[in-house]
């Protein structure tokens, strides 16, 4: 059945239609929440809270066809909100040892083998877990939900410039954490000058400043 239909019927108080929406979008909403909060119990609470908000504000959704994007923006908002409320309940333990703060980096060289790539993915996942909630929020919306900067700005209710700077900072923070975890994976400052035109030489924030 069409999402638009389901949304319209839910607005009219049809609980069955709302249940269909819930069942259809729950897995993806949960994944988005989990990637931001990194705690399964908290992710469940986030999705519950998000669907309650959806139920309350369904009337305000102008384009029912955009339900999915709207839902994920509410999920990400609730996730950051709940993380801020709990603050110290999140996986920040690894963070203290691997912040790499103060390190100037100049991008990641392209991994040559699939093994190397998989290893880097693993390190990046660790680095992601140590990011600030607001940075993880934009990273998840941009790279998991594949929303563009304008859509993210609309979703989290802040200017596009703020989204750009958060993305830039988040990517830089990931690079620094990677450097702290394994210095050989990240080039130090000055690499560009010595290796012009190398693969992956653009600075990490250039794609989405």
């Amino acid at each position: 059945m069409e999402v638009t239909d389901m949304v319209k019927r839910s607005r009219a108080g049809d609980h069955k239609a709302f249940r269909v929406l819930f069942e259809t979008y729950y897995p993806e909403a949960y994944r988005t929440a989990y990637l931001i909060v990194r705690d399964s119990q908290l992710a469940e609470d986030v999705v519950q809270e998000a669907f309650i908000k959806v139920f309350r504000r369904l009337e305000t959704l102008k384009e029912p066809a955009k339900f999915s994007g709207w839902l994920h923006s509410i999920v990400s908002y609730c996730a950051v909100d709940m993380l801020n409320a709990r603050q110290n309940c999140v996986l920040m333990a690894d963070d203290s040892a691997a912040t790499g703060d103060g390190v100037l980096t100049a991008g990641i060289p392209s991994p040559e083998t699939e093994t190397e790539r998989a290893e880097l993915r693993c390190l990046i996942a660790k680095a992601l877990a140590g990011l600030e909630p607001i940075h993880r929020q934009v990273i998840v919306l941009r790279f998991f939900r594949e929303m563009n900067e304008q859509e993210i700005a609309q979703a989290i209710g802040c200017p596009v410039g703020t989204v750009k700077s958060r993305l830039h900072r988040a990517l830089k923070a990931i690079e620094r954490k990677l450097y702290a975890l394994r210095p050989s994976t990240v080039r130090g400052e000055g690499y560009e000058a010595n290796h012009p035109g190398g693969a992956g030489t653009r600075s990490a924030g250039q794609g989405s400043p």
Partner: protein
Amino acid sequence: MKPTILEELVQEALAKEAHDTVVPDVDQAWARLAVRLSQEERRRYRWPQMGILVAGLAAGLLCSLLPPVQYAQQYLLGGISAFYQPLKAESTANPIITPPDAKTEPGSDSSLASRNGAQTPAAGQLQTQLPEETPSQAPAAPSGDASQAAGPSGEQVVTLADLKSIVPYPIPLPSYLPSDMKLERITYRKVDPSLAVLTLYYRGAEHSLTIKQSVPGDDAAAAKVKRTRIGNSDATVLAQKGGVTIMWLKNSLKIELHTNLGEKEALQIAQSVAPAS
């Protein structure tokens, strides 16, 4: 714009992590949400009522603060009630002007009634005393000793007056009811020497309301309410002297278990409730 190596890797890392994430059971999640949605709907329903109440209070306050309105209101309402109750008006020297030392609120129903000699109970009392004072509105609950004989289940139809002699405490009744809702019937059932159940049935034009009260004999202090978990759901346990009641939701199905077995055994049964194979 072409993504950087880092962006590509972040995307891949997130996709892998999302793929590896174990999503909880949707049915259980829905059951949890359904409880909150029903609370939400009740809250939604309450807001307009609160709005009306606040508006009414504000209007009342405004009326009492504006002297000309106050006199006009007294004059108008006094005149109307004097017109409709000419006989009772005789007992009042001046049905229109309230004496300056009158203690009741000008313009209120009670002040108006006292001016005209009528005995009108307060709004809260009106609801609770309705079945006794207006037996015509409770056709199935005859007054006095006319309570119906107990049926095979031991259930009797009784009146509030009957209950006063049966139950050793004042019966709690709702002081608020929707305007069209009236008490239709009261039933009383003695389950065993230590437990009695009385049920109040209210009915309106479109809605109904049932209030069930269990009377745990002479040991009411021993009754306890607590929260527990049945499977993955929150459950409420009400332990009384005469038995245990456990209520919970299982995949959006409301289950209520009542037994005169012990609490431990009742919980064991509740935990074991599962779809029949």
